[in-house]
């Protein structure tokens, strides 16, 4: 009865006019990151973003009242959790490493390491209901939130109702405002600073596909990480790749789990590299603890398989030896690339109050 009553109130059943949501007028985003689209049924408003922020940090979203989104997405770690793979209400290690949440406005049409969600709203629903993550019953959650006056007011203004759809839309709205755009590299792009010699060498290597014929040395990073400043590639399944972590026998399903296509076996989402120095451990299963280990993998640890990215196979700073995949980077070059990757850290993003736990400030 109480649920029905609150649902009726939220739907305007008491004859009250729904308050109008406030447009996010002071919102600005960098032009150079490119065009983005906000779903027409989920415009960015002050109330939606505030609601989403509260929900993001509220452990009531989990069945045991102890796990919130922020459990696995910690701001100071660029919204990752520092674990090999995340742990939710069940206490069992989950299948994947926590993905950073930054600049999700741009690009992704497929979320999660294996692309199993098509929208940010859809993505938000998955962990809420997953038995090992938050294990929440959505009807129960709606009732709980509708019983909270502050939440009810925000929901009413932002979405006109407390509902599973409104919950996921609010979470998505907050996540869309998680914009990171003030790393040293951003400042470099804006002309505010210059990179030092090592960082500049790293930048050049990062951007170059090696070409022995013209003595061009490169680390081949940009071939897959073309959208490294934002949330990923913007066209369907674009931006999923097999980066040689496993050989044929041990290839994990990856994107194939979603599409069913054998050519998608072993392909995982190419993540943002923004704040990469803060988001260890690395890869979809968190197998590498440091950026040095990641560089070693790309330099000499790539394993061949039928779906291995051709751009990785082809990349070599020495005349390629048949059957051997290696970038042949020097120690100095690897250190330079890591120095460049460190310029992608945005301290303002990981400390900004507007992205922080609203309950901690009360």
């Amino acid at each position: 009865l109480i649920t029905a009553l609150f649902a009726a109130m939220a739907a305007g059943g008491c004859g009250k006019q729904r308050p109008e949501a406030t447009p996010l007028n002071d919102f600005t985003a960098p032009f150079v990151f490119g065009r983005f689209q906000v779903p027409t049924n989920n415009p960015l408003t002050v109330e939606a973003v505030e609601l989403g922020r509260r929900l993001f940090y509220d452990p009531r979203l989990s069945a045991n009242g102890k796990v919130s989104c922020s459990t696995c997405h910690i701001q100071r770690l660029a919204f990752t959790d520092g674990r090999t793979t995340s742990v939710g209400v069940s206490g069992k290690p989950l299948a994947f490493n926590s993905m950073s949440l930054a600049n999700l406005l741009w690009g992704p049409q497929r979320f999660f390491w294996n692309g199993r969600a098509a929208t940010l709203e859809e993505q938000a629903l998955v962990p809420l209901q997953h038995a090992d993550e938050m294990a929440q019953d959505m009807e129960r959650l709606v009732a709980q939130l509708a019983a909270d006056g502050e939440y009810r007011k925000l929901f009413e203004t932002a979405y006109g109702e407390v509902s599973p759809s409104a919950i996921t839309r609010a979470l998505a709205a907050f996540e869309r405002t998680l914009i990171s755009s003030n790393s040293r590299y951003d400042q470099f792009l804006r002309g505010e600073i210059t990179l030092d010699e090592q960082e500049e060498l790293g930048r050049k290597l990062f951007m170059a596909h090696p070409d022995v014929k013209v003595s061009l040395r490169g680390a081949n990073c940009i071939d897959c990480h073309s959208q490294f400043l934002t949330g990923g590639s913007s066209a369907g399944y674009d931006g999923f790749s097999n980066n040689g972590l496993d050989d044929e026998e041990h290839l994990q399903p990856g994107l194939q789990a979603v599409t069913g296509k054998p050519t998608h076996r072993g392909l995982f989402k190419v993540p943002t590299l923004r704040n990469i120095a803060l988001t260890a451990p690395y890869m979809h299963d968190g197998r590498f603890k440091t950026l040095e280990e990641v560089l070693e993998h790309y330099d000499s640890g790539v394993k061949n398989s039928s779906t291995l990215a051709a751009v990785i196979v082809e990349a070599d700073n020495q005349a390629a030896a048949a059957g051997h995949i290696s970038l042949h980077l020097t120690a100095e070059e690897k250190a330079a690339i890591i120095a460049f990757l460190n310029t992608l850290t945005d301290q303002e993003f990981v400390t900004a109050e507007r992205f922080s736990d609203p309950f901690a400030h009360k």
Partner: protein
Amino acid sequence: MMPGRPVSAAAAPETAARRNVEETQALVLLRGLPTLNTKHSIAIVELNPEAKNFGTILQEFELPDLTHPPHHLYYSPNGRLYSTCLDPKSSLFEVSLSRNASGAAMIKGVKRLDTGGQQVGEDIIWHNVEGKEYMIVTFMGGTGLDQPDCGSVGVFDPQSNKLIKLIQARKSVVGDGKPFIMYPHGLSAYEDRLVVTSTVHPDLKTGVGNAITVIDLNTFEPIQNIVVEDAKPVNFPSSPVEVLFVRPTIVPGVAPAVLVNAMFGFETWKIPYNEKDKSFGAPVKVHDGVKAGTGVPLEFYGNQTELFVSHAVPGIVKRYKLSGLPELVPAGPDIKTGLGAHHMIFFSTASGRKVVAVQNNLLNLGNAADKDPTEVPFIAKVNDNSVTVHDLQSGEQLAKVSFKERYKKGVENIEALFGSGFVHHH
């Protein structure tokens, strides 16, 4: 899909909803016309010929304190937007762009740059010499319009925008027979050689050039002038305006050469370049406008397969095979645009049709019929004040917007807003 390739949706046709509709939007520099009581501005304009709002200004940023308008827009390799300007108070500035909560692009403001007193900013290139990147800008008015042989080239740090070197070599100062820089407008570079044109005094009456200047980028000193002049169909010096250093990064394996459009000579010239001894050969006329019935050749633009050259008279864009450069091998029939055919941008419409939008204005000076004090009779006749959009394959005109009729402004320059446009411009 090829096994082993990163998954790409390129093979699947993009729906209109998913397509980057911003490709059809242009940044347009608009000139206020004094008798029509309008102000200079930078605008974002919808140029999708299939859209109901074709020709609509989506956002406009007025520059009310400028007497003379902004002139040309350029994106740097790092995606920073710059504009040269005809106003002595602000000959070069950086334009700040951002996005609002709906993702729409917004012009936020402009930051004036210190040019060291150089005036009448024209063209910009970014060029790397010996591992060092430069932003190089031509200033047709040099350090003073009172100088009958004015003109200079500014070399800037592309990060800080600080002026590193002001290259000036006025004819009256360097002496007879010495290489000079005068009224520089177009510029293009290959390795350590920069070429700039000698066009016309900014007051359009004191003097007209007929040569290009070669500048050694190791020393930033002018080392040679090369005259490109023959027919003089309007009894003026040839007035070289835009120049393109054809080089291997544009056409793999090409023998480098310089192409020059001579505005009042109605000609396009080719100057061979010998990479080994860094010498330039004798100019050869590769397009004769008097014979072809074309006049006032202006811009060079390119895409992956073709080079496009705009001719203000009779208002056409000629197209050539990129692979045929430095010779001008026709790639198809002319695109008939409007009087003053000038700058252009390339993009795909929401339905995927490939188009070119052409700004049809030689210069946006006023019309005598409006009793406009900026009237210059010859130039006012070569202005259609429009942007026309054409099917890139057939040349068919799909849409036209007259900025003078609709907004009481002239159109000074167009540039693609984001993610589309030219491959090699200048």
